[in-house]
């Protein structure tokens, strides 16, 4: 039977070894260049967090020695860690790229965001400010650092993901995405979200940070911080998140795995002071990135999906 190939000796190959990071990087650079080629007015979400810092390095590689063909945009909830905001501003200045900051507090003043209490989590409210910023500038493609491994609802997200004129995601009616032939076409008022590091995991991100020797905000590394234990999470003690009655404040060596809105982001106990030590801890970790750190995702089985439908990152 000749139709089925027999076992052959491996072909002699002079092609040098390529690690999974090389492959992931090449794919992400390709995606960024496709956005620049297809999108009329793209923008890149940049928070100063590790995933968006990886995106900036990938954009440097995609467009070197030219400038980025898009500005950077951050939605400030007003509840961000100051170390991360300082880092954000410093990195944007080093690169000489334009950084646009829009704040949830402006949306609150306009009345488009209404919260029950001033200290309520503003994490979900970011979606409103984000969509306002996209409309204000007329962006038609928004590049983000979301990854499919983060959460179940994201496992089915496209690399180029369509958002309707209300900024909404319809997970049951997504455009089929074949090969690397991305469909970036939208009508006026609609946009696509583009996720160049869709195929990366938390471990890949840290391995890349280590390989590229990327600087990241200090709170990603172990530091001593007052925390309380609540529902299996460590809650940082801050002005926004004071201890509740009966809770005991402890000072522990912790690090943040994600650095979102203070009101819903929790650190993990850690002694890791370098990317390599974080990689070692990540390999042994028994809890997912968001499971260990995000109060907002524990609300229900579908909380991320609901936020995403509403226009969240």
């Amino acid at each position, binding site marked *: 039977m000749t*139709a089925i190939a027999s076992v052959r000796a491996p072909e002699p190959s002079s092609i040098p070894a*390529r690690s999974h990071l090389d492959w992931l990087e090449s794919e992400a650079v390709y995606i960024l260049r496709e956005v620049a080629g297809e999108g009329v007015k793209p923008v890149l979400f940049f928070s100063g967090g590790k995933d968006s810092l990886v995106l900036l390095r990938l954009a440097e590689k995609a467009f070197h020695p*030219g400038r980025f063909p898009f500005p950077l945009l951050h939605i400030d909830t007003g509840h961000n860690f100051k170390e991360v905001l300082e880092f954000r501003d410093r990195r944007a200045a080093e690169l000489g790229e334009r950084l646009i900051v829009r704040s949830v507090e402006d949306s609150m003043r306009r009345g488009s965001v209404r919260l029950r209490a001033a200290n309520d989590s503003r994490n979900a409210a970011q979606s409103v400010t984000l969509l306002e910023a996209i409309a204000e500038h007329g962006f038609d493609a928004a590049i983000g650092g979301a990854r499919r491994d983060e959460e*179940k609802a994201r496992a089915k997200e496209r690399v180029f993901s369509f958002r309707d004129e209300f900024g909404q995601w319809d997970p049951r009616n997504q455009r089929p*995405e074949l090969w690397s032939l991305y469909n970036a076409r939208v009508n006026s008022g609609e946009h696509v979200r583009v996720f160049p590091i869709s195929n990366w995991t938390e471990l890949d991100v840290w391995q890349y940070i280590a390989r590229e020797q990327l600087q990241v905000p200090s709170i990603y590394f172990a530091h001593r911080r007052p925390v309380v234990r609540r529902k299996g999470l460590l809650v940082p003690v801050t002005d926004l998140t004071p201890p509740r009655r009966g809770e005991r404040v402890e000072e522990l060596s912790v690090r943040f795995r994600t650095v979102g809105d203070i009101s819903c982001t929790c650190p993990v106990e850690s002694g890791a002071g370098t990317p390599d030590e974080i990689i070692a801890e990540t390999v042994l970790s028994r809890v997912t990135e968001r499971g260990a750190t995000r109060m907002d995702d524990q609300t229900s089985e579908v909380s991320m999906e609901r936020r995403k439908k509403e226009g969240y990152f």
Partner: protein
Amino acid sequence: MSYLGDIERNTAAPATANGSSGLLRFTTAGSVDDGKSTLIGRLLHDTRQIFEDQLAAIERASHKRGFSDLDLSLLTDGLEAEREQGITIDVAYRYFATPRRKFIIADTPGHVQYTRNMATGASTAETAVILADASKGLLEQGKRHLYITHLLGIRHVIVAVNKMDLVGYSQVAFASVRHAFEQFAHRLDGEKRRFYFVPVSALKGDMVVERGDRIPWYGGPTLLELLESIDPSEGNGLQAMRFPVQLVQRAGGHGRAYLGRLASGEVSVGQKVVVLPSGRTSTVKGIHAWHEDRMTAYAGESIALSLSDEIDISRGDQITDANRPPRAAQSLSATLVWLAVEPLQVGGRYLLKHTSRTVKAKVVWIKHVVDVETLEKRPASGPVAANDIAHAVLDLQQPAFFDSYHLNRTTGAFILIDELSNQTVAAGMIV
């Protein structure tokens, strides 16, 4: 005939020995109740990829729905609607890694929108894992899975003969399923594809990651060992150089540079190239990867090229091997997987995206439609509906530069986009 299952345990080169083996993309296909979700759950679980909070979440959800056992399929059902209906409705991407490789799984549902989803998952995969039920043999669905992996040009197919525990781990049962698949594959494939057969019990964990001790008569590799050793770039070194230009950088350290990802072959400094559609020839002056200047680059790498001559080149053009240029035509014969609810009609006009180039196209003739139930060709009497596979001829507004899909999965593939709705309506493979 031979297949890896019968030879000595595969001792292929380590993960660093060839072009892209640090990573393998594979797709999984199985009929309803073949135990596909259990198999994926087993792969993730036994390679220690499932986290405690994920396990706790599916325990809670299994309990809520009245299951006494852990329902591993919940790991792969990501959307609210899927969990409510207990079915998978879309392709999900999952990740795991071993010390040898990182894996990306495109997990495709077995029934709903079956052709469309499986084609999507297969389009980016280098290997397919097809589930067969040892107690049922080769069913119609299994034939369709083989057919679609064939259509999408997947060269490595692993048939995981599952539920061996239900047939008493019988060697005869395994051989019979294998024989049925081989017979059918022989009928289907004129081209060279590699088949691997492995007897497994996803439920009990035999031959997936661990060998177990219940299948002593099988001396071949486990499923994971196969996945770790398959060389996805096998044969790719023979491909001609193709470089679709994504962007042109007019100013910079190297003068004018062309940005893109090498679709196939190799490119070296000094190599003679032809630029299409202009037909102008030149030589490669430089290969740039950020701060590094290279002498050679390989398929899959994102690079910047500069040429010795000033040539007018823009996005959508191709820089290719001067000695082995692609075909050029203003009319394409192609196999279409129809994806949209609105049917395909003769005379339909679409946008065709091929590499980095988008042109207008018109479907002028539908030669025949393949019945995915029987795999018989029938004349296209009526409109072509979602999940149909059709052979069609398209006229293009401008010439395209392409290769046959079976020779080149990048320059032989295209999508059709509806100009009004902007929906992706078809996947095309050039004959």
